[in-house]
């Protein structure tokens, strides 16, 4: 079985995961990158991959389940009028192909049949671990379609302010239980003591207490710190989709039945307004002594 893989960036972990996933499906795997010297142009990149797909008639075309991977593959699918499956975790051979894909940001899985050939699939992040043996595999670079009508025209630098949420090693997050914008002072204090970033749940951004850039969740930032401290957060699927990459999770909540405890490694039962300042005081004591 021959498999083509759109490689966003050969050094990128998710592109390497897509290549590893592809090698689990077939012997004949080719990585395809697109020359980006003129800037990202989604439809033109999709046209280049659609042309390669027409020419080489692979059994499958895969892409990493990233923003760009999903976008470019959707252009291929629209161009070729074929079905496309976004964010697969596994593929079973057969006609039709049976796939398992991610829904609700990972809170639910769907088993589906794909009626179309070649199969167009994106690979969900961390569906497989990237096999470093595959990084030496040659990736061919295609020219994008000549007529790019939509292209990035400018890159604005990020507004940098402290530790970035996505890359932070510790995230201290507050939920509805914080109660107000001012209530976040204790969250900020603990985050600063741990050299971490402040996060929040969607309820908090909807109430206008914190900016959306602080929101962790399915429609916010996805984080993967060593430790995630969830304060006054109930554990809605929307939120858990953003913090399930954390290595350890400490939940502080007065409600013993809160669903966040089912995903937690450590639990403190109590009101964050008392517990969080006590933790900060204890850290100061330990550091001072």
């Amino acid at each position, binding site marked *: 079985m021959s498999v083509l893989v759109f490689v966003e960036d050969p050094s990128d972990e998710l592109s390497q995961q897509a290549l590893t996933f592809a090698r689990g499906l077939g012997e004949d795997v080719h990585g395809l990158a697109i020359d980006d010297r003129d800037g*990202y142009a989604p439809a033109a990149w999709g046209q280049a991959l659609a042309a390669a797909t027409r020419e080489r008639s692979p059994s499958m075309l895969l892409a990493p389940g990233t*923003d760009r991977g999903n*976008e470019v593959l*959707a252009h291929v*699918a629209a161009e070729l009028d*074929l*079905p*496309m499956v*976004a*964010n697969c975790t596994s593929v079973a051979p057969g006609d039709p192909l*049976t796939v398992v894909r991610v829904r*609700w940001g990972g*809170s*639910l*899985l*769907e*088993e*589906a*049949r*794909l*009626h179309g050939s070649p199969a167009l699939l*994106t690979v969900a992040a961390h569906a497989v671990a990237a096999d470093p043996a595959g990084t030496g595999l040659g990736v061919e670079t295609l020219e994008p379609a000549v007529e790019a*009508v*939509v292209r*990035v*025209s400018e*890159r*604005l*630098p*990020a507004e940098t302010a402290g530790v970035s949420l*996505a890359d932070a*090693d510790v995230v201290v997050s507050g939920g509805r239980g914080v109660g107000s914008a001012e209530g976040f002072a204790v969250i900020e204090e603990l985050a600063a003591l741990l050299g971490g970033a402040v996060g929040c749940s969607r309820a908090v951004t*909807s109430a206008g207490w914190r900016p*959306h850039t602080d*929101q962790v969740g399915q*429609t*916010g930032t996805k984080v993967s710190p*060593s430790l995630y401290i969830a304060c006054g957060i109930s554990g*809605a*699927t*929307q939120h858990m989709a953003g913090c399930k990459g954390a290595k*350890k999770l*400490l939940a502080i909540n007065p409600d013993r039945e*809160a669903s*966040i405890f*089912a*995903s*937690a490694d*450590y*639990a*403190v*039962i*109590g009101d964050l307004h*008392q*517990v969080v300042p006590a*933790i900060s*005081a*204890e*850290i100061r004591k*330990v550091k001072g002594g």
Partner: protein
Amino acid sequence: MNILVCVKRVPLTGGKIVLTDDQRAISTKHLGFTISPHEECGCEEAVRLIEQHGGSSTVLTLGPPEAEEQLRDMMAIGIDQAVHLVTDGEEWDPQATAGAIVEAIGAQAAPYDLILFGNESADAGNYQVAIRVAHKLGLRVVTGVKGISVHNGSLRLEEEVPGGRDVYEVPMPAVVTVKEGINLPRYPSVPGRLRAKRKPLEALSPVRSEPKLEMVRLVLPPGSGKQAEVLGDGPDAAPAVVGVLSELGLV
């Protein structure tokens, strides 16, 4: 300008998803409904653009008869009218959904200058309906947008990417998908809700084609299997918490 926003009715899932006995849907016996967060922001953006530039906004959904509730909600925050592509509640695959939307757009008297979608739906997350609609209509499409401004018939669109913001300039008409964070949607007012009841809603009955991406069943992912270690109750737990922090090398 004329703006269309496409939305999808989805359950408010809360903390724990429970499936129906046939495993083909989420059990919604005890759940309310909403639309995907990105789409709420799409509606808010449409209302703001019309407030600034004049014109008319329309919200469209493909969904069961009950989805009228979501259309009225969006008209309550200021959308002018609605188109409801009524289904029997069975989910449509992305190709069929895009086809029905394109047909409905073709049937409208005035063409749209801007067609907005959410970047992906909260439930299915197929990441493709907007792109398919754009291809069928021969329009330009930009996805994942967190900033829109209109100058002389052109759109300046900003997208967050690692390390900064990418800017796109495209002429209208165009298709744009937005992400939550582009704005903070307003809450509907009581007069807004009353006005929404009288705003025009056109109901159409599209025919569902055979799905090419056919859902077989839904499966709950295996639980974390975690048994949280309780460090204590209230502020007395602080020393135990700091013990864990130092074990993890964080203090």
